[in-house]
């Protein structure tokens, strides 16, 4: 039997029972619409929150650090082999720049220093990045300005919580110590940095240097304040504990201060000596598209570095939204299940009514598979028609929901709408409606196939 004839036959037998068909289809319409609208809400929520994250640019940044810089305990031999190749140098920056989908690469250099000002002092975490990149890090200044590039001197931008670290050299008085804020005006007062803290304490405690002479006072360097990050001393963000400065100036100063001595935070050779070069603490990598972050990340990992990004976090968040969607879809699915029961019921009734007709068809040589196919097609038609109408209804409902939510103005990023029906959802829901119809019609169709041809012979 030709497929076209089967379509025609099952279509016309549905048409014969119009009212019943329409009622059964109505169930599928409601079922499809409730699933699609529910999932569209989940998708819309996900899309809104993703676009919010994307505005922070946090989705496309990879932080590259040295292997084992967070996790120790590597095999010694392995560490040694890697030690010669894995420090983050300008060469590494250039290598990463060459990876596909990498948009921008810039190094970060962290070190420590002691800041002194008018009897107050504080250990500070100095973070060197290129002056141009400071703005890109999302730093917002409360006072002052960003240091200009190539200033020829070290200029500092203080995190808003740094001031709390300053304490009186003698009494220990300070914000984090006893709640009394140090009397230091970061913008106006002169602040001096000591980089070589070992030498400083050797001098303070009157220790002798390696060559036997008494330790000299290391140089104190006046560091001009360029700006302070906005926010109070209690407002934490990822930048608030750091003191930012230009990375090239920092490198220059460190070289001058330490000569051949080991700089705090820098790796050493296998023999425990300082390298000539200053290595970076981390390299920041900007990827052109969120979808390539993991790819780039694994390429960097393959180079022997440790790469981390928000990708995993974003993925787990996406996973969470998938659960929400599943839950919402499940709620919608209940009504489709009810519709499926309706289809099965309609098909069963139809088969009881048509016992004789099926018998006649069998006597006249209609293939059993064709008989089953006819009934499956009928059920599939119900699913399809219900799916199409249900989808149309969903688009309408989705538009209404978006309109209402827009007018409510809930403060979320609702430019894109809270209900969102992508093309794939439309197609999948159609296929699903047809599938549900056919699944509901499966057992009735088996029954039709197995009916005895003798039903045709018996006289009613």
């Amino acid at each position, binding site marked *: 039997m030709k497929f076209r004839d089967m379509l025609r036959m099952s279509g016309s037998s549905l048409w014969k029972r119009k009212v019943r068909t329409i009622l059964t289809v109505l169930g599928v319409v409601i079922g499809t619409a409730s699933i699609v609208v529910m999932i569209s809400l989940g998708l819309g929520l996900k899309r809104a929150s993703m676009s919010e994250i994307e505005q922070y640019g946090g989705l496309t940044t990879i932080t590259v650090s040295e292997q084992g810089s967070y996790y120790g305990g590597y095999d010694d031999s392995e560490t040694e082999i890697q030690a010669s190749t894995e420090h983050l140098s300008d060469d590494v920056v250039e290598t990463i720049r060459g990876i596909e989908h990498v948009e921008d690469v810039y190094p970060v250099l962290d070190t420590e220093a002691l800041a002194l000002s008018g009897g107050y002092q504080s250990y500070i975490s100095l973070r060197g990045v290129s002056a141009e990149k400071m703005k890109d890090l999302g730093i917002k200044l409360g006072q002052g300005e960003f240091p200009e590039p190539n200033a020829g001197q070290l200029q500092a931008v203080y995190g808003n919580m740094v001031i709390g670290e300053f304490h009186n050299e003698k009494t220990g008085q300070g914000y984090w110590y006893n709640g009394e804020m140090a009397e230091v005006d970061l913008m106006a007062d002169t602040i001096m940095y000591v980089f070589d803290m070992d030498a400083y304490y050797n001098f303070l405690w009157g220790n002798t240097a390696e060559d036997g002479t008494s330790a000299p006072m290391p140089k104190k360097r006046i560091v001009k304040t360029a700006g302070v990050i906005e926010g109070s001393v209690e407002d934490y963000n990822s930048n608030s504990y750091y003191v930012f400065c230009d990375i090239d100036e920092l490198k220059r100063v460190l070289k001058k201060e330490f000569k051949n001595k080991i700089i705090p935070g820098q790796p050493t050779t296998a023999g425990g000596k300082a390298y000539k070069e200053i290595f970076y603490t981390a390299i920041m990598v900007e990827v052109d598209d969120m979808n390539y972050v993991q790819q780039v990340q694994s390429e960097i990992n393959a180079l022997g570095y440790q790469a981390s990004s928000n990708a995993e976090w974003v993925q787990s968040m996406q996973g969470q939204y998938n659960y929400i969607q599943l839950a919402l879809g499940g709620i919608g699915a209940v009504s489709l299940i009810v519709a499926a029961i309706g289809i099965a019921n309609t098909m069963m009734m139809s088969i009881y009514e048509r016992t004789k007709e099926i018998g006649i068809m069998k006597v006249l*040589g209609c*293939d059993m598979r064709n008989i089953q196919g006819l009934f499956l097609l009928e059920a599939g038609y119900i699913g399809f028609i219900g799916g199409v109408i249900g989808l149309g209804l969903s688009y309408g409902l989705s538009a209404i929901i978006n309109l209402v939510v827009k007018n409510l103005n809930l403060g979320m990023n609702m430019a894109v709408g809270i209900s969102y029906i992508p093309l794939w959802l439309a197609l999948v829901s159609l296929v699903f409606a047809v599938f549900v119809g056919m699944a509901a019609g499966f057992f009735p169709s088996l029954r039709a196939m197995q009916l005895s041809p003798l039903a045709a012979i018996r006289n009613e």
Partner: protein
Amino acid sequence: MSDTNKKTVISVKDLYKIYRVGESKVRALNGVSFTIEKGEFCAIVGTSGSGKSTLLNMLAGLEKPTKGEIVIVGEHMETKNENQLVKFRREHIGFIFQSFNLLASMNAIENVAMPLTFQGMAKEKRIKKAEEVLELVGLSKHKKHKPTQMSGGQQQRVGIARALVVQPEIIFADEPTGNLDSRTSAEVMALIKKIIREKNQTLVMVTHDDHLASFADRIFRISDGKIISIENGTRE
């Protein structure tokens, strides 16, 4: 039987059909054997409940025998599964029902063309064939009529056309005129006979009416599931 031109199309050997009704057994067919040649018109006659329909149904593969052998155009019916039986009917057998059994939603042409649809024939071709056969049974004016718009005789002629349209080797008919008045019955019988004679088709007809049976070449008289006599028909 000495005529070498004669070809056996139906051969039945030791056929039994036993129904179980609760504890008791009903021997609907109790050891039946016969052969039918190509082009023959055979009537199976007997009183109600004698087993005529049971025999015909088993010949057409609608029911399985309890025991025995049925060979039709060289193929054993008793070993076929239901799928194979359906296929066999589609290719070799036409069936005429007592109660016409036309599909009410279809007009005459569509009803006649239905078995061709099952064969997978294209629409234009099967409509053309159906029109030809409808003409043959004298219904060219009623092509578009639905069954409810036709008399019993006309409906049965559509039924005959539907059985003939696939050009089957064998046609089975169970009381084909059972629902018609006697005048119409005779007309329909004459029509059936005329057509199968022209095409040299084999017809096996069940009836309880001796007068209608007399149209046949041979008459199998059946009683309590056994053939009690085989007579030759009285008219030419």
